[in-house]
């Protein structure tokens, strides 16, 4: 880990001096992490490639601000999540999700949720993820971010604090409120299908 960090520091120094080979190396090294984060927080109407490019631009522009007190990956994760979060602010929050908007698979997930108290079958996990993403569209950017980090990526409180820069109390309050709002939307959907 120490060696990796030292390499990153040396690479950054070369990038700052204008070494293109080092810049290539940095892009190759960081792209899997950035792609993963961008996919997890991607606003629906934004191209993944465009967002990755924006993130890299911000990283290069702010490279002088990286002090090296935290691992490079943590700093990059924070820049990436903040870029996605800013992009989400431009998207209009969907007022509500209706049963008619759902795919057949998503409807099946809801029926299964209402009919049984068991865990959803693994075959429905993908449809469940899509359904959650659609429910997230009804929430504000802050609520979307906190639900994604806490429930989908299963990050700890410390990790969420580090990525968002929010205080522990704010993280807890936002997580609680976001979950409450999501519950309201889910309840509305389930009631819509009730005979």
């Amino acid at each position, binding site marked *: 880990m120490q060696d990796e960090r030292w390499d990153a520091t040396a690479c950054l120094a070369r990038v700052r001096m204008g070494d293109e080979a080092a810049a290539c190396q940095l892009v*190759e090294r960081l792209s899997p992490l950035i792609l993963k984060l961008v996919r997890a927080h991607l606003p629906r109407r934004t191209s993944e490639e465009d967002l990755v490019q924006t993130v890299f*631009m911000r990283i290069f522009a702010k490279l002088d601000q990286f002090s090296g007190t935290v691992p490079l990956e943590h700093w990059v994760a924070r820049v990436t999540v903040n870029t996605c979060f800013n992009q989400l602010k431009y998207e209009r929050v969907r007022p509500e999700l209706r049963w008619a908007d759902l795919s057949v698979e998503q409807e099946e997930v809801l029926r299964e*949720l209402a009919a049984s108290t068991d865990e959803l079958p693994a075959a429905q996990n*993908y449809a469940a993820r899509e359904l*959650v993403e659609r429910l997230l569209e009804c929430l504000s950017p802050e609520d979307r971010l906190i639900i994604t980090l806490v429930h989908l990526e299963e990050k700890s409180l410390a990790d969420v604090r580090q990525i968002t820069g929010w205080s522990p109390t704010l993280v807890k309050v936002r997580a609680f409120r976001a979950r409450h709002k999501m519950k309201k939307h889910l309840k509305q959907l389930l009631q819509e299908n009730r005979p």
Partner: protein
Amino acid sequence: MKPIDEQLSRLLRAAAAAPQAQPHALPFAVEARVLGDWRTIAARGEPLPLLPVFRRGLACACVLMVVALVFGVSQIRHLTKDNWTTSSEMVNLVWMQ
């Protein structure tokens, strides 16, 4: 726990367990665009060493401006009533002529 709480928890657990596409390397076109951006930023970065000097100069100018303002205000406060009266008398004299 209310049924809706439990339903949401199950839904979120299933969503978290959904397989995610593993990120691969960036497509060549995106990598080329990113490196193009880096070249632009690196080229633009050359005049940046002057920026701290400019910032310090601006800060010094602001400090001087505040000092001058404070000095000016304190000078006005030190003017006695007579100064103002004399000035008024002078104006009146000129006016009367």
